[in-house]
């Protein structure tokens, strides 16, 4: 166990957002707290990033949504799972056990630093699967908001594996020269080392009914016409036609951000969360 990390004193916050480490000196997580613009919020929002190649593509999107929630009066925290982005660890150390630990650390930190009574989790895409494990294991967020969630882990894993196989020999990526011979033994999936344990965790998780989310209250942000899960969703926010799409590209110029129409949806979500009692 490493040295416990206390809340650092920075020379000046970025606007009203504060980057810092969570955890301890041997297992630290990068996190950013977006302090609320107005006081009195009962609820804080923990933004849970998508997994694998979708995480770096959506960093700006999550930062903009978090800033919008804070402007609406909701203290919000973003973080990177252990083994991803700026957090400690390597990607092959990522699995549902580690992610559940990270969720617990981040949720407690949000409450401790913002003073809110309860935490809602805003969960992007494949992160819905480890969050489902987290709540079934006893975590009690006040609300789970699923943003374009992945419902079937096994199906999603197969899609990713197909996509990865195409990327490994893509003429767009590799031009004329032949890429390296298929290196399926390198444990890489969409450019990231993914352990067999994590693959098993993903493949073994499906969101099929209310019990899948441990009976917790659920809202969702969904694309029009998308398959609705059998989860009991109290509210659904519909994404606009120009909402950035996840999945697919790993190109370096394909970052996601909040469009004008998406901002209206995000603002509506923020207003609804602010009204929660």
């Amino acid at each position, binding site marked *: 166990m490493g040295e416990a990390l206390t809340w650092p004193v920075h020379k000046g916050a970025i606007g009203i957002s504060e980057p810092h480490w969570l955890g301890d000196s041997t297992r630290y997580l990068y996190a*950013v707290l977006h302090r609320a613009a107005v006081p009195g919020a009962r609820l804080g929002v923990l933004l849970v990033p998508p997994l694998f190649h979708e995480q770096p593509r959506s960093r700006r999107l999550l930062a903009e949504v978090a800033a919008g929630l804070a402007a609406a009066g909701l203290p919000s925290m973003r973080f990177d799972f252990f083994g991803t982005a700026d957090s400690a660890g390597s990607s092959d150390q990522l699995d549902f056990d580690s992610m559940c630990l990270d969720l617990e650390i981040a949720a407690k930190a949000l409450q401790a630093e913002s003073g809110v009574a309860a935490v809602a989790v805003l969960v992007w895409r494949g992160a819905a699967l480890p969050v489902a494990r987290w709540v079934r294991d006893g975590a009690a967020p006040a609300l789970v908001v699923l943003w374009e969630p992945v419902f079937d882990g096994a199906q999603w894993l197969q899609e990713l594996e197909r996509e990865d196989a195409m990327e490994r020999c893509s003429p767009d990526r590799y031009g004329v020269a032949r890429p390296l011979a298929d290196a399926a033994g390198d444990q890489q999936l969409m450019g990231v080392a993914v352990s067999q344990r994590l693959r098993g965790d993903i493949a073994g998780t499906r969101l099929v009914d209310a019990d899948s989310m441990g009976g917790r209250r659920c809202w969702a942000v969904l694309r029009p016409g998308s398959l609705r899960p059998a989860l009991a969703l109290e509210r659904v926010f519909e994404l606009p036609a120009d909402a950035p799409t996840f999945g697919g590209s790993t190109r370096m110029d394909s970052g996601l951000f909040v469009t004008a129409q998406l901002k209206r949806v995000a603002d509506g979500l923020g207003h609804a969360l602010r009204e929660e009692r």
Partner: protein
Amino acid sequence: MEKIVQFGPQGRLVGVLTGASLPDSAPVLVLPSAGLLPRAGPFRLHVELARRLAVRGIRTFRFESPGVGEAPRLPRFGSREATLAALDHLASEYGCRQFAIGGLCSAADASWRAAIDDRRVCAVVMLDGMSFVGPWFHVGRLANVLRRPARDWPGVVRRLWLRLRSRSQAGSVPQDMGDYRDWPDRGDAQRQFAALLARGVYSLWVYTGGYGDRFLHPRQFAWSFGAAVQDARVAMHYWPDCDHTFYGRAHRDRLLATVEQWLPGAFSGAVEAKGVRP
């Protein structure tokens, strides 16, 4: 443990310093963000490189340029200003005196500009950086066509015809990738290259197969930058089997090993140029 560093106007930019516990005398590699990718780099390349270099006594500072990832857009403050501000902050707050700067694509461009602007920079790492299309580019293109199986040639001819037709319809030469990048013209690039060498700056250049719009033959390097590339402080590698962002684990490992082996010598002034002689 790494250190979060806030710098720039009102401390609004954020970077991560790896090797923060190393002494002030330890040199530092500065890695601006590339394209729209966050500071961790393509497939976390910057993070892995930073941790490897820390073991060798080299600090690394990775950050996001304004408007990228979580970094706010700042008026009249772009990647060039952010890079110079990073150098200044590292010097004043962490005692850094010896800098290398590097990166992929647009980050390579920012690194080149910073090296021109700031005499504290003693090395640059240019991944798919500046390059100029010339006779060797076309030789490379022809060689690639001839390497294709004969059944592909009708498709090649068709695509060439469509390209020529769109040029004639547009009435102008199609835009070149250089139009989207912040590059000097070839003459200025050669003068800058020579000037950096005269100052003692080392440079490592890696061109990949994913950069086929700009680089298709190793002899383009000398054509682009002149006789100065023969200097022992210049190392160039051409890896046609790699893509632009090093998607494959083996390709990233190759790049990490190359930089890790080259950089200590660049800082100590004892490097022996490796790579393909242009």
